[in-house]
């Protein structure tokens, strides 16, 4: 658990989450005026829920108490004895439930605590844990305001990443362009007539110029920066935090190469035991080996699996804590969704 951290407020110009921030602030204002407005901020690993929590802390300075859970909670008093504040921000609430028999009692106590409390509870959850808990424990009804942080398209990612780097960057296409880049995913947003609602739809468009360039063997001549950012959007699943990590790791001084953005192969790691460990890592984001071991069923050799995954550069272990390598994140998520190991 961590509750003493330096507060650094994001610049007001950063509008990557402007829609989400608007909904959040509106819900908090309604909550402060007396309505029950417990909030769940839901996203993938590194996708921005921490930024939204920080935004609330900055916006309502002095009226918030913030706790970041870093491991499984075994005593609810950590949350029930918080100092008297208007808004409680509890991060990483997926650590309240353990996916094992007798692993839900703290989670149920927390739901009771939230339901009986007049303060505003702003909670952040990993999206896979949230979906799991919604299905098996009906958590959605306890949090009337749910903000799911959406994936961003490559234009947004580009804008976000370049806002973090002011120096010039050279883009180099030094490997054959992945064929998958001929399809570009775009997020179209329509405003529904006579209502204030919007409907967003993911579409794929084909880049005929790139197809023609690939056929002529001249794909490197097609706007290298565009190809680099599209590749980045692809291997990050539109997740800004993941994209930024990959960018920073791939950036070599002032140059970024396509070859530096190659996700590790998942061959040999899709056996049922490894897949389950990966699904837990996707759901818990960053977790200590001891915590991971406590939810692993008997018969799974965790140490062996972790060392195998680390050798393949799919996970990294630092200070006895495990998390998925950002560059492997999208591939693992897509594979695990395909076989329904995460929902």
């Amino acid at each position, binding site marked *: 658990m961590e509750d003493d951290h330096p507060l650094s407020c994001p610049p007001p110009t950063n509008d990557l989450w402007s829609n989400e921030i608007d909904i959040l602030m509106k819900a908090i204002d309604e909550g402060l005026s007396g309505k029950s407005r417990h909030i769940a901020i839901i996203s993938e690993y590194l996708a921005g829920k921490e930024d939204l929590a920080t935004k609330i802390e900055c916006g309502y300075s002095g009226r918030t108490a913030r706790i970041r859970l870093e491991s499984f909670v075994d005593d609810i008093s950590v949350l029930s004895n918080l100092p008297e504040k208007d808004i409680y921000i509890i991060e990483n609430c997926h650590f309240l439930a353990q996916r094992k028999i007798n692993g839900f009692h703290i989670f149920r106590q927390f739901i009771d605590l939230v339901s009986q409390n007049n303060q505003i509870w702003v909670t952040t959850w990993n999206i896979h844990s949230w979906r799991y808990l919604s299905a098996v424990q009906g958590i959605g009804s306890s949090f009337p305001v749910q903000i799911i942080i959406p994936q961003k398209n490559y234009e947004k990612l580009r804008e976000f990443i370049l806002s973090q780097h002011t120096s010039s960057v050279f883009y180099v296409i030094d490997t054959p362009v992945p064929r998958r880049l001929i399809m570009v995913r775009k997020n179209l947003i329509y405003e529904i007539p006579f209502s204030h609602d919007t409907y967003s739809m993911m579409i794929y468009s084909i880049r005929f110029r790139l197809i023609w360039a690939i056929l002529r063997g001249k794909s490197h001549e097609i706007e290298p920066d565009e190809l680099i950012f599209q590749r980045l959007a692809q291997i990050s699943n539109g997740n800004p935090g993941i994209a930024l990590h990959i960018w920073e790791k791939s950036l070599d001084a002032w140059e970024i190469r396509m070859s530096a953005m190659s996700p590790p192969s998942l061959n040999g790691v899709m056996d*049922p035991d490894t897949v389950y460990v990966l699904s837990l890592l996707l759901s818990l984001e960053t977790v200590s080996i001891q915590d991971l071991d406590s939810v692993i069923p008997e018969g799974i050799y965790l140490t062996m699996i972790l060392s195998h995954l680390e050798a393949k550069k799919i996970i990294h272990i630092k200070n006895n804590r495990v998390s998925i390598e950002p560059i492997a994140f999208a591939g693992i998520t897509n594979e695990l969704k395909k076989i*329904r190991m995460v*929902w």
Partner: protein
Amino acid sequence: MSNATTVITNLTNTSSLIPDNVGIVTNATNIVKNLTNISALSSGITETPHLIDVIFNPFWIIQSLFILIFAYIVVWLLDLALKILSEQLGTKRHILAMVIPVMKIFLYIGAIYLIITPLLHLGLTEFAVFSGIMGAGLGLGLKDLFADIVAGFIIIIEKPYQIGDKIQVGNDYGEVVDIGLVQTIIITPGDSRVSIPNYAAISNSVSSANAGSAEMMVITDLYISYDSDISEAIRLLSEAVITSRYVYVSDTRPYTILVENLPLFRKITAKAYVNDLRHEFIFKTDITKRAWEAYQIAGIKAPDISAGGYCLSSSPLI
């Protein structure tokens, strides 16, 4: 006038052939030839090929064989490719797999069409005769085969099951791996390959456990003694279900725990969906194993089967 004379001559020839015992094949050939002549004369067509000439034409035979072999190879290759592709889709594999039998039917229909095209150039009467001969053949020896083919069409159109479904037909239970023109092939849990004639599959009741989805309901029964804490047993079993790595729960795929009081013990049943029907048995084992481990820690006991039957050793019957 001369045409009418020829018709009469041909009819006379036809009637004169009937009592003749030269050989049934020769007679049939002559009958067909004469009938062809009659139809050609009556319709004013100058010349159409004889049915026998077409059927026994070596070129037609070789061409037909080539078409059949080619169709078989194309079907086999496409079948393999679609199966590999569908496996890449994980739990969505059924979507692509359902195309396979349709593709097979269309390709085989195309092949048959190409084979019989020369016959379609025959006169109407000849074709009627050919159909009659085919009908007789079907009636005598190919009845079952024809019934299976028609049943194959019905299976593809009506979809009582699809490739990838787990079905029970009679005593056979397993995953459908192929729906052919004539038979459906399933792989049983014991890894045996069972061929079920399509006609048998539609004429008997067929139960499909998943009906085109990857998930399927798995029912797990546990038996506990009457002196065990039933509420705790239900809670532990539900947690064994929802924490299984093979479970799939959604609004439309909920899980249920049922309790039934039987004379000598209680039966607790967990009904839950497995995320992929291929994990059916391992899911059931996982629930049973972990639930019983939790029961033992919680002091929940199985019925005592001492004294030669199910009876309780420590508590009266309720």
